């Protein structure tokens, strides 16, 4: 086997539809997870400041901290649905063509991009909400709903990604 043949074999083994689709799925879970981790930590930092003044607000604020964490869960869901549709969980994986692999990558893009960015933006609103609840504890519901408005787009991205995966595989 000469070097050219070796490269061809290597590429045909490494770069096939399944690898690209799996990469897309794991990237979705990873990047949305990073976004959520950043978001949750940002809100947590603001929360700690408020708690130094009044530790009894912990329960009210915890809800706000949990909100930017959902994008990470949506990423995990996308990955899981991909695993189910590709048959990895049943132990009988389907073979995807290169094009199908790239289509899956395209399907995962909305969740990757919107999930990451919306977690950060939602954290920003939730951080302001933490300040609001710190001053006016009765405004907790408003603060939570305000932050949830940002999540709408993460939900739409999840739907887009999921439905596209359902249509492709």
């Amino acid at each position, binding site marked *: 086997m000469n070097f050219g043949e070796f490269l061809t074999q290597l590429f045909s083994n490494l770069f096939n539809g399944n690898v690209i689709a799996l990469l897309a799925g794991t990237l979705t879970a990873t990047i949305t997870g990073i976004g959520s981790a950043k978001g949750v930590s940002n809100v947590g930092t603001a929360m700690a400041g408020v708690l130094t003044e009044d530790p009894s607000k912990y329960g009210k604020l915890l809800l706000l901290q949990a909100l930017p964490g959902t994008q990470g869960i949506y990423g995990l869901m996308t990955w899981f649905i991909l695993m189910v549709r590709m048959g990895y*969980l049943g132990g009988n994986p389907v073979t995807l063509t290169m094009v199908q692999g790239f289509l899956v990558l395209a399907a995962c893009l909305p969740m990757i991009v919107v999930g990451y960015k919306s977690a950060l933006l939602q954290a920003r609103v939730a951080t302001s909400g933490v300040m609001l609840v710190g001053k006016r504890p009765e405004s907790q519901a408003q603060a939570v709903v305000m932050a949830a408005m940002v999540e709408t787009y993460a939900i739409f991205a999840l739907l887009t990604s999921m439905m596209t995966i359902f249509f492709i595989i």
Partner: protein
Amino acid sequence: MSVVTMERFRLVGLLSERREIIDRLAALGAVEVRADAELQAELSRELAERIGNGAANSVDAEERAASVRRELDALNREADQLEELLPVCQRLNETKKGLFPRRPKVNLAAFESVLDRRDDLLSQAQHLRDLLRDQEQLEREIVALHLEQQQNAIWVDLNPELQHYQSERLRIVTGSFANPKTFVAARTMLDEHESAAHLLPLDYDTAERPATRAALVATPEDMTVALQAVRQIGFVRSPELPGRFTYADELTALRERENRLATALEEIKKESKLIALMERAFALLADALRHEAERLAAEADTLTGERAFMLRGYVPAHLYERIKDELTAEFTVAVENAPADDAEDAPTWIYNRPLLQPYAEVTRMFSMPHAAEVDPTPAMGVCYALIFGMMYSDVGYGALLALGCALLLYRFKVRGTLRAMCQMFMQCGIVSMFFGLCFGGFFGNFISVLSGETVHFPTLLFDPLGEPISMVIFSVAAGMLHIVVGLALKVYNLWSIGDIAGAICDPLAWIFILAGGALYLLGGWVSTAGLVLLATGALILLLFSNRDTYNPIKRLMSGLGALYGAINYFSDLISYTRILALTLSTSVIAMVVNILGTMMGLTIPGVIVFLVVMPFGHLLNVALSVLSAYVHTARLQYVEFFGKFFTGGGRAWMPLALRPRHVDIEDAPQNELKELKPVVEPLRTRYARFTKYIENN
């Protein structure tokens, strides 16, 4: 749709009885006291003219207001300070509070009489604070003494002559290094600089006791420089001894001092524990002080003359007679009621059937209905439970939620907003069980996984994961129904206030369009009927959305603008696809938990993993899913549903009442009044009041 009829309330009584009357009103908890600054100023002017000292009177009024503010601040501050002591008392009494503690029950007389002990209890509280401060100080001193003893202990075996060596030609300073290496480094440094000072080890270097103690020997002239040099390398002087004391004497003295301090500390702790037994009295006083502040504010809101006072406010119509009877039987008062025609200021109290009343919390979080609006609570409550149920759809999770809430309600007897939320989520849990049956969810796919895919939980409708398109259609259809209910409420609202044309030309037209569109998609003959309905709605909008002009071009332009609003309805409908996303989120995470829990099979480690992963994973999923469903259902109500018919802006009714935080008052008359069924005011009457107010102003 139940807003309670409110009436204006006026009471004139003797100034000498004002406090008792206000006490009584607070115990009845049915009258909201409102200040009238203008009327008070006018009354003060009149009084001043009569007495002939206008300027002094107005100064008096200002001073009085400032003194009331000062007194209110003082009362609230005292209550805050008492409340800060409560956790300390709990710690000292070693009482286990639990997550949802039950409040102690007291009677009204005890609640009111605790103020007689105010000075005594406050001085006890101050004494406890002083004791805690002293305790902290003593504990700090004991720690410092401990450290001093440790430092002295290492020098106890030092030759007593060295401890107090005095000579005119030689100085000896003892001290220690952190380790033998620094000692050697210091000695080498002195040698290298050919210093006249010498560093002598005081111990043999052994593994048990490394040679770290040393004596610096030098002439008085060289000592200062040598000491400075070795200090830089880490030489720490041995503690100084007072007088002719040896280290052993000093150590004994320190131990004796520590013992004395420890005894004092024990005394302080005992005394603190004794005062902490007054925890309940402190809690009661904190509540009484806050109530006193509220009562004082109400007193300040009354109009005062020379011998009489007038109190104005609002009372629910069904309670007026009862309040009147109670007051006239006990005091020299004149009481009257009148329709609440100042709609801008009149407060709102919404009342619904017990099943729907908890959802009033969700309405209150948004806003109270204003004078010309329906109460959205009943319709919103039903929709809330249904949408929550769809998002959270799982028989197992629904049962867990309902049971958890029932436990909080009936076992821990939680109160206030938490009680309303628990009642609400209990209902939502039950509805979730129904939708769990529809979509075949019991802890996700628990039954299928456990039975090795041989047995499946029954699915009445369809599996959202297997048929996502059906679920999208289901979600949007649910959304359409929700929006149509909102529009129907708008029709009812406009119809009730007499704007029949408005009801037909806007919300009803949109109902035609939405319903027509839905029927058109069904196909068959229904499709034709749907098309007719859709066209009728569109035509109404096109021709009658602007009814203020007869200019056909202007009308058509406005009509086209109104039809463009269809895009908003479209985006609203799309927004309901979140129901699908959250349904899938609940079931997919449950599936992940089930797979993780059963992945090691029927082995001993497998069973252990199963027992750990299953409860933890499913409880985590319950928490996450409840949070998501709560937040997103609220959003659908506030934005998509309320957006169609409800703007809010009403002021919640806030009567002068007993609102203790730490105790329950068993025999408060307000408990009895709460049982009386309110009189509900029809929207038409309420709106008539509102328009009358607008016309008059």
